[in-house]
């Protein structure tokens, strides 16, 4: 069923009885051309572009839980393409372009909101660094504006501009950045992939990878063996575990990141704002709650929950930036497990096992990458070679030294 103003009106007069499930719940077939492991944003987008761009028909996505139970439904929904390094900037800009046309493409309301992402600076040297980043972005055709303090005040008056330690000196604004409703991204891709014949198999955990003569032949799952000519891993925080089933040892640690939502209030904050003196980012959802987060907890974790010191730290940074936050109550907080890679950048590549492909290492910034990641991973799987946009995201860059370290913090995953 196509969603449109007419279907909404028709159902309004029909007691809302005519809606159909957005995707089928098929049993796994004995074999597929391509099996994608992980029904998060990246896995679903990959299946969709494999069907749409590459014309493949016999595809399955297997997900151990329910759709959206992973990071795609846990993130703080920020999308942007304000990257500095070659290899990153064109990739994230392509992602933002795909976001801009996503809802029409999928026929699904993902609440793409280009409200602008504003990174604040608090020292002169930080302003210089932002000028450099903004210039690098503009050289790649990405929008960036360097704002002074008064321009920032005009946009976001509620900030503490005269904070004794971290006064606000200005900011780097990307107007095309913003937020996207995260669950709707999973649902929209799932529905669109399903309509193109992709089997989405939930509650089906991959427990083994079968390889014969160096070539993949399928995956063992909790619902039996599923044969596959090609297998793509897109299992976010659990990639080390699943890749180990194929004998791979990866440059990845799993870490926990927490996120928070306050009670709903009237419109207060119209942009995504990030605090430059620490690590804190905040936006206001359409329901009115402030959605915010900060640093990862900093130690390896698969627990999907963090600890109190990080919560305290995030709240302190929030108060330093917006003192009026102190009057709000936090309603909910949660954690998600992410693949922190050794240089802070992702991997989209083939592997030493023929027919096995890898999409991982997204750290805490992979939501914005969802469309381009799916698009490039689909290309890599279908053509057996990377697209120019993901050519830098190689697995062997750790051996060759061609690292992409945006933060310059070295092989220390909890610092990226």
């Amino acid at each position, binding site marked *: 069923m196509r969603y449109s103003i007419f279907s909404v009106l028709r159902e309004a007069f029909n007691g809302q009885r005519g809606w159909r499930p957005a995707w089928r719940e098929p049993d796994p077939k004995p074999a597929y051309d391509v099996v994608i492991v992980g029904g998060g944003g990246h896995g679903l987008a990959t299946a969709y572009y494999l069907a749409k761009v590459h014309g493949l028909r016999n595809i399955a996505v297997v997900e151990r839980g329910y759709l959206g139970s992973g990071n795609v439904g846990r993130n703080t929904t920020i999308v942007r393409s304000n990257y500095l390094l070659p290899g990153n900037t064109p990739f994230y800009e392509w992602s933002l372009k795909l976001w801009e046309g996503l809802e029409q493409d999928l026929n699904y309301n993902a609440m793409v909101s280009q409200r602008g992402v504003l990174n604040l600076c608090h020292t002169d040297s930080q302003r210089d660094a932002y000028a450099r980043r903004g210039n690098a972005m503009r050289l790649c055709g990405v929008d960036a504006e360097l704002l002074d303090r008064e321009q920032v005040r005009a946009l976001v008056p509620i900030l503490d501009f005269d904070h004794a330690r971290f006064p606000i000196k200005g900011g780097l604004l990307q107007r095309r950045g913003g937020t996207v409703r995260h669950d709707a991204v999973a649902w929209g891709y799932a529905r669109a992939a399903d309509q193109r014949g992709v089997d989405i198999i939930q509650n089906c955990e991959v427990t083994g990878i079968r390889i014969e003569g160096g070539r993949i032949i399928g995956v063992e799952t909790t619902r039996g063996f599923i044969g596959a000519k090609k297998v793509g891993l897109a299992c976010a925080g*659990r990639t*080390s*575990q699943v890749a*180990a089933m194929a004998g791979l*040892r*990866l*440059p*990845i*640690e*799993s870490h926990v990141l927490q996120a928070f939502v306050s009670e709903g209030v009237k419109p207060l904050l119209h942009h995504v704002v990030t605090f430059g003196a620490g690590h804190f980012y905040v936006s206001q959802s359409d329901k009115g709650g402030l959605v915010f987060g900060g640093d990862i907890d*900093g*130690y*390896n*974790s*698969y*627990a999907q929950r963090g*600890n109190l*010191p990080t919560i*305290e730290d995030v709240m302190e940074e929030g108060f330093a930036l917006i003192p009026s936050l102190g009057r709000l109550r936090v309603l909910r907080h949660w954690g998600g497990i992410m693949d922190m890679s*050794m240089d802070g950048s992702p991997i989209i590549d083939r592997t030493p096992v023929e027919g096995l492909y890898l999409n991982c290492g997204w750290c805490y910034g992979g939501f914005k990458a969802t469309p381009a990641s799916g698009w490039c991973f689909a290309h890599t799987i279908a053509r057996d070679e990377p697209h120019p946009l993901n050519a830098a995201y190689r697995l062997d860059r*750790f*051996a*060759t030294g061609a690292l992409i370290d945006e933060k310059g913090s070295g*092989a*220390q*995953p*909890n610092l990226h």
Partner: protein
Amino acid sequence: MRITCPHCGERGNEEFAYLGDATVRRPDDAGAARPGAPEFERWMDYVYLRDNPAGRHRELWQHVHGCRAWLVVTRDISTHAIFSVEDARAAALARPSLVARDAAS
């Protein structure tokens, strides 16, 4: 999560800084190594590759806001339960050297 420092007693984890996997070993060999050479693989292993298990993990923490000792904490990464905390120096001295380990295997 609370860590019992062998020197200072039980403290909140905010007093400690995390380094990472304590089972990886800094190679003893100095000098340049070409890809494929055993020294190169040892350095790759030490700098970049991790088992990242979803269970028991030996890891290095430093009691930065306490006695500043380096510690080896054995922790279940899936539950955050802590099994043991040892002094890192004693744990390191108890290991055979990498060259000796490779020669023996």
